[in-house]
């Protein structure tokens, strides 16, 4: 069993990354009137970051499932 604090920290980190990705300073970076392969940059960024966040969550959740008690 892993140290439950590691699980907590990892979850906190993922959440923080999510908040960072979807709030103003970072969000504003991609809020531009440009397209990549014809698709607006903002749309690509939002769905890409969303997918990446879900991937991170899947990783930490799987690890956490091993050591359930916190």
């Amino acid at each position, binding site marked *: 069993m892993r140290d439950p604090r590691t699980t907590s920290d990892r979850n906190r980190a993922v959440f923080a990354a999510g*908040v960072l990705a*979807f709030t103003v300073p970072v969000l504003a970076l991609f809020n531009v009137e440009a397209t990549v392969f014809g698709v607006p940059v903002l749309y690509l960024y939002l769905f890409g970051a969303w997918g990446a966040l879900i991937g991170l*969550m899947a990783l930490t959740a799987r690890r956490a499932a091993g050591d359930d008690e916190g």
Partner: protein
Amino acid sequence: MLAGWFIFAVGFAYVSLLFAIAYYGERRADRGRSLIRNPSIYALSIAVYCTSWTFYGSVGRAAAGGVSFLPIYIGPTLAFALWWFVLRKILRISKTYRITSIADFIASRYGKSMVLGGLVTVIVVVGVMPYISLQLKAVSTSFKVLLHYPEIVMPAEARSVAVFGDTAFYVALAMSAFAILFGTRHIDATEHHEGIVAAIAFESIVKLAAFLAVGVFVTFGMFDGFADLFTRAAARPDLARLFTIRGGGGYVQWTTLTVLAMAAIVCLPRQFQVSVVENTDERHLAKAVWLFPLYLLAINVFVLPIAFGGRLIFAQGGVDPDTFVLTLPMAGNQEWLALFAFVGGLSAATGMVIVTSIALSTMVCNDLVMPILLRLKRLRLAERRDLSGLLLAIRRLTIVLALGLGYLYMRLIGESYTLVTIGLVSFVAAAQFAPAIVGGIFWKRATLAGALAGLVLGVAVWFYTLLLPSFARSGWISANFIDDGPFGLALIRPYALFGLTGLDEVSHAVIWSLLVNIVGFVGVSLVSRQTAIERSQAVLFVDVFRGSEGRSRAWRGSATVEDLHALLARLVGPERADRVFARYARVRGLDLARTVAADARFLQFAERELAGAVGAASARVLIASVVEEAPPGIDDVMEILDETSQAIEYGRRLEEKSRELERATRELRRANARLQELDRLKDDFISTISHELRTPLTSIRSFGEILADNEAINPAQRREFLGIIIKESERLTRLINQILDLAKLEAGRMEWHMVEIDPAGPIEDALAATSGLVRESGIRLEVAVPDRLPAVRVDPDRLVQVLVNLIANAVKFCDPDDGWVRVAAAALDGFLTVEVRDNGPGLGAGDQSRVFEKFQQAGDTLTERPRGTGLGLPISRQIVEHFGGRIWVTSRLGEGATFAFTLPLANARKRAAR
């Protein structure tokens, strides 16, 4: 052309399929092979979050605002990223304390408060009603749009259609039937509605598949992929504008909607129902935590393409963007795809309506109606025999009412608003629970007063800034107050409260309502105090992972097991009550048949069991109705006192127990000593008897042997020896008789022939019997006995025996040279006193009591030849005491001895008896 009856038949077939799936799910559950015990099914059921609001409304919102619909789905993803801290904790708390709904959860946390539970329920009912009506409206609209296939005609207002011609009406009917059938099977609201969860999971698949199908068709069938679609949109300035978030207001809206959705995924009653109440295994959360956001991502990928596609294709306008999902396939002449889209929207709507109505029914029943009914003493509900029927009836009625009200709301108000706006009104209402919930599970100091204040303030602002203006927009009340403020007070205009402008109305409402909510919650919590039960509930909730289950606030007082069982049986049925009690007895190792009083722990167990059926607040009231509880005084002091006094009580009981033990030990020791003494006495008795018997036997045998061996013994000596043998034999006989007498006396088997008699007679008999002895020893006998004496009640033979004994003893021990014995009798003070006095050597003080014990003779038995058997006096004592008298001796060494006894006179005895 899609005929109305055909669309209706497809819808009917789809709903029938739902019934079949739900039925199958229940069957599987009954056979113990659960269909829903699976993390993927669990994640799909959470996707009930995506209602027809997602299915139709997201596109509508995207068509007008670009990505502004996305926070509604990114918010839940962020909330799930925090699952380890929030969702997992809520789940554990709810499972541990058998929470049945969000109202129950909040009420439990704040001291099982009925007021708070009721308030939450009312807010939910008011807040969620528009949301239900929204689903009905979506179904009704999509049906009417599809009806005109292949023409694309926007439907007229629903008000123009008769109720019985309205699809939404039949949908509402079917949904209430479904919810009643599969949602109110069990009385225990914490039991899983397996059929419904299975059907909801199925619906999630259908709506996702339908939406993806439409998305793929629009993107790749009507356009040439994403790039083509967006490039063509970019050419139109009004659409290119939607590619970015607009300025400061856009960011604020983005952020507030994200926060709002984060709160909603936890606080919406239907989300609480599927993700907490219907959860079968806490471990499923770890998978759902990324699977559900993935579902959200998937269902949103094609929202923007469909929105832009719609705006490009229906460039001339006249088509409501909320219907693009349906009208685009229609425009592409894909009737089957359009039908599929209709079914997808139907599934999105029905899933939400079913789960919400069940969650509502539990809440209204457990947290609103039951507490009120239980409070109404006149109904004497707590004494009713069977309440389970009533509970179910309330829940069923609630479902029908909720759907009826939802339908009514749609007919009266719903037409004036777009889908997304109606949905957001509900979201903001639900978000008001977030401070109380999140604060409740992390902050022990959060008080009931704080939660009430926060909720009331937040909801008041919500009502004023969002709901009231929505009424105004529907034309129910004058819209003037929106623009000018009520009574012309511009400062408090509902869409620009205190001059906060530049925001859309929802962001505005979210910011203000959550602000006052949080400030009220935290502020009032800081200045108010918790009652004892609030404090213990707070600890239980916040420290749920520390296994503090056992520290729950105990009931002070107790109830009988019988009452408790009767109570449980009334609410959950007798069989279940039996099972529950048996389980408790097994765990605690109790024998129920012999347990009369239910202690605090038992009460707590029963309360929790009951909470699963009627909610925490009602359960507490119901248990209180059977418990004889001392009412708590000043709560704060009581809490401390309670803990201390429990410790003291515990210590006191321990002390009592140890004292009891000590007492028992002492008694045991005494009993043991007595037994040992008796054992020793018995040994002594036997050895003494053998000794006493051997003495005469030895002399008989010795003289017998001398006589047998010496033939030449002279006749005089022979006669002397034979005399000794005869005397010793007599002594032996006497001894044996006396032993038998004593044994009989001691065993209480002596036969007594009690008569009332003048004691002078027996005294004379005794003197006559001993006259030979007296003459032989040549002593002087003085007799001072009156001719007549008052009667005594005795056995005359035994009285003679006593007297003979005493006289023979006196003769034996009196002075050998000038001996005299004096026998005197007199009646005095209700007693007859008889004295026998001699002038023998007398008795020492030690011997005076010893002579009445068995085989104890005065003097040294080792050096002197015993002059008696040592049994005469003990026998005399037994006899005198049996007659109710007393025997004693007074003497001084060298001055003779006086043996005396008293007997109660017969008439004195009668008088005493009277």
